[in-house]
């Protein structure tokens, strides 16, 4: 077995999955909203980047930025439609879930209606260079993917750790009632959160489009993977999501090499079910040491 191949694939997959899963995780824990319109935001960002590349400029970083912006816009849209009207109503969690599903249905069908079923491809953002090191080759898209997503993730995490907005989000994640008492507005903060998670989805959409194509329903599989990784990491925990992304990325790389790409989803789900059976609240259940209540 080619060890280097497995390692590099693991890192690549872990980066992209991590980007997606952290978005889902943050949304859930700070807003209590399980955003299943993520697939739509993903596709929306992809189409945004595609339109930009078609009509304005095909320069790599600009396309990437436009995808991220479009993702943030999609996030704001979902927030205004599915979070703001019902966040203080009874039974919010289930209703929020269904509302985002409805937005997903409307959004993807609108995209299908507008752009047609043919999938689109983006220009090569990171160029086509190759780096040959002893024992392996590093392609531009792989290196670019890893570097961009790691940089973006670090930026977001750093922002969450040290800025005022990040502190507001983290405070709201822990105790929304107390947050309003110290002057943190739920509605305003929810817009931040959704814009940031949407931007993460947009980034992942552009990065993944280097390998796959952009299609109205192309966001579904990434969304399901993101959701299951967030689930496995323990909804609401950033570290848990990162660890889960690495574990599942490793699993995917190993499965592809050992038994074939067909079985990736099966082994992945067996693994998630196994983890959840042992730890019903995911990997974060092990990490969490703070005294509750």
């Amino acid at each position: 077995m080619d060890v280097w191949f497995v390692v590099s694939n693991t890192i690549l997959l872990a980066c992209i999955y991590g980007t997606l899963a952290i978005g889902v995780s943050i949304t859930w824990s700070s807003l209590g909203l399980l955003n299943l319109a993520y697939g739509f935001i993903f596709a929306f960002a992809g189409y945004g980047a595609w339109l930009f590349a078609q009509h304005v400029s095909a320069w790599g970083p600009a396309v990437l930025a436009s995808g991220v912006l479009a993702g943030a816009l999609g996030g704001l849209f979902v927030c205004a439609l599915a979070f703001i009207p019902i966040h203080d109503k009874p039974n919010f969690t289930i209703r929020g879930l269904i509302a985002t599903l409805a937005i997903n249905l409307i959004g993807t069908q609108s995209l299908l209606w507008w752009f047609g079923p043919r999938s689109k491809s983006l220009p090569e953002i990171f160029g086509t260079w190759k780096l040959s090191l002893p024992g392996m080759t590093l392609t531009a898209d792989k290196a670019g993917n890893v570097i961009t997503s790691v940089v973006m993730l670090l930026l977001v995490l750093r922002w969450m750790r040290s800025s005022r907005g990040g502190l507001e989000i983290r405070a709201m994640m822990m105790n929304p009632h107390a947050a309003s008492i110290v002057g943190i507005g739920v509605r305003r903060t929810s817009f931040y959160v959704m814009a940031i998670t949407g931007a993460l989805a947009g980034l992942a959409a552009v990065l993944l489009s280097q390998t796959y194509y952009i299609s109205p329903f192309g966001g579904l599989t990434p969304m399901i993977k993101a959701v299951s990784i967030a689930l496995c990491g323990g909804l609401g925990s950033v570290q848990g999501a990162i660890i889960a992304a690495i574990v599942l990325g490793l699993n995917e790389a190993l499965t592809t090499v050992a038994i074939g790409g067909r079985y990736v989803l099966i082994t992945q789900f067996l693994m998630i079910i196994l983890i959840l059976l042992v730890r019903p609240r995911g990997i974060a259940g092990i990490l969490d040491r703070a005294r509750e209540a």
Partner: protein
Amino acid sequence: MNVMQQDLSRETHTLHNHVHRREVLNVCGLSAGYGPMRVIHDLDLIVGSGERIGIVGLNGHGKSTLFYAIAGLTGWQRGSIKLNGIEVGRTRSQGPGRYTHQIVRAGLALIPQGDEIFHGLTVEEHLDSGAFTPRSWRERKERKERILQIFPPLKKLMAVPVGRLSGGERRMVSIGRGLMGEASLFLVDEPSLGLAPKIGKNVIDALMALDLGGSAMVIAEQNVSLLEGRVDRIIGMHVGKLKGEASAALMLHDQGGV
């Protein structure tokens, strides 16, 4: 003990405030409650700047509800609440907590009963979260220093998640958080509740030692002896209405006698 005299003394007192002090809080005809239940009945309260006021009353007589109503957290409310001359009371609140953050930003610091804290944040981050206005955010270092002077035990705990602190330490963090912003009105709800008597007394001492400047502080307590003689006024609260100082003394007797 005459009823008439008691009313008179209240009148003169409010009059006195009108003349000498700037009003921080002016509550007029406030009623509030949850659903069909009415907890506060046509209540008037005026708090001048620099004042420290104690509100005493038994459990369930509306002390916390009064604070929640001022912060816009009750189910419904009616009547006028003016904070620094800005009207913050709404006839129909759009669901509890919808405008709380705006009221807080207008200069209210509510230190709620039972420590509404963020379990995972460290003490330092916790104190930061209280500094929500741009100015206090910029000055947060000096402000934290000030709070550490008031609560020296917190100095060692700055990097510890709040979820792991003891009840007394949590109360200090919760009060410290309330003192971080530039509030003009501090509402402190039962600072000694659930604490050992000595620690509770320390917490009250710290509140008393605080330099209020132009702001005001209202402390709700069940235990009158902790406040007696140390605040400017003690007001009794009984079934959703405020009683004058005279009847506050009576309540002290009641508590001793029962």
